[in-house]
């Protein structure tokens, strides 16, 4: 199913390859010190809501919450954003300032920077600490594989996918995850607080 999208992804890919040329040397220097289970071992390029292209490691050095959804999703996906906001509201201002949030689109064909930005504005999230990115279509299975997210595109263009929030430490190691949506998960909140110490 993702394969059908190859042609449409070409324009995006061409843009990404250009920017990758600049990225690769900087990334390999970091890799020497990465833990073997760090998600930052995965070298892919993604485009954010402002059109900027980076790796998944844009927030390396801070604890990060990761989630995956698509902007046109009607029900659960907005709840993912509000669940993260709810969880953040349980943190002190100081704790919150150190935490980053990276949301990854599972619908890179349709989730343009404009749409991702629009979603963020509608939800009133702090774009100095949050970003939404779209990967290259061919990298999507790998990225979902890394975060343990399951997804399937449906014939009508919608998706089935698991709603999951993953906590990364400063080096990109996955510390904890939750699939409790719509309320805050106490154990997960504790893990976040510990990672911010």
């Amino acid at each position, binding site marked *: *199913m*993702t*394969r059908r999208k190859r042609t449409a992804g070409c324009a995006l890919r061409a843009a990404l390859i250009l920017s990758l040329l600049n990225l690769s040397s900087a990334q390999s220097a970091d890799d020497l010190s990465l833990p*073997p*289970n*760090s*998600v930052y*071992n*995965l070298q892919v390029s993604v485009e954010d809501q402002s059109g900027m292209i980076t790796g998944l490691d844009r927030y390396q050095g801070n604890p990060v919450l990761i989630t995956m*959804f*698509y902007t046109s*999703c009607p*029900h*659960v*996906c907005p*709840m993912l954003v509000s669940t993260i906001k709810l969880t953040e509201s349980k943190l002190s201002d100081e704790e919150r300032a150190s935490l980053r949030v990276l949301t990854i689109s599972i619908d890179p064909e349709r989730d343009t920077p404009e749409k991702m930005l629009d979603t963020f504005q509608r939800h009133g999230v702090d774009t100095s600490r949050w970003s939404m990115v779209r990967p290259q279509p061919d990298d999507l*299975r*790998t990225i*979902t*594989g*890394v975060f*343990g*997210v*399951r*997804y*399937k595109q*449906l*014939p*009508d263009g*919608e*998706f*089935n*996918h*698991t*709603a*999951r929030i993953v906590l990364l430490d400063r080096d990109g190691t996955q510390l904890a995850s939750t*699939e*409790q*949506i*719509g309320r805050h998960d106490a154990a997960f909140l504790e893990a976040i607080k510990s990672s911010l110490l």
Partner: protein
Amino acid sequence: MRVRVGLLVFAAVVSGYAQASEFVPIPGGEFRSVIPEGEGDNRVAVADFAVQVAPVTNAEFLRFVLHHSEWQRGTAVSLFVDDQYLSTWAGPISLGPESSPHQPVTQVSWFAANAYCEWQNARLPSWYEWEFIAAANDSVPDARALPEWQQTILSWYSRSGGDRIDDVRSGPANYYEVHDTHGLVWEWVDDFNAFMVTGDNREQGGADQLQFCGAGAITMEEKENYAVLMRVAMLSALEARYTTRSLGFRCARQSEIEP
């Protein structure tokens, strides 16, 4: 000098065994999948594609890790492989006496299988593609309704997991000239994590429903087709870094025949 001769012998052995298994063209078509694409409709269209006639062997995978040391056991990062990765081999670049070059490689993660296929300018087959070729017996493209077909597969499932795995192509080719879709190993597919079977049929309602965004979770059709559903159940339990003793893979490509 001795070292050099040793290397030459080694290289000869590796290249001799590592004739990458060829691809055969598969004419696509419509068929009934156990996994419906949309609600209530289990007819699925599969486009023309090409697939390797047999699972990737130990020798073929050895050749890959010799070219890509980042995928050698002990070097591959634990983000991408579990601690049993290639554990049937004697060493990171040696098969040893316990592993035949012609046996299908197992103890490989989805990430490793995916990287191998990319190296072959190929990809993993989708579930629908795999299910499509695996529906054949030696004379018809879709033998799934035949009791003998189901019985053959179920009798394989009932064999002991400790048995030695046969070499690839030990069994007959099927209608598509493809070997070993059943009876040898389980196989990774590209979209292995598209199955969301758990938490759906067993636990109706409640918080688990919230795991699924979109048009509701998948329900499996053709429940009488137990032999294939076993595959789905196994794949739905896997994470991309897992490896098992009986899980291998083969690669696929878009069809080389221009429409």
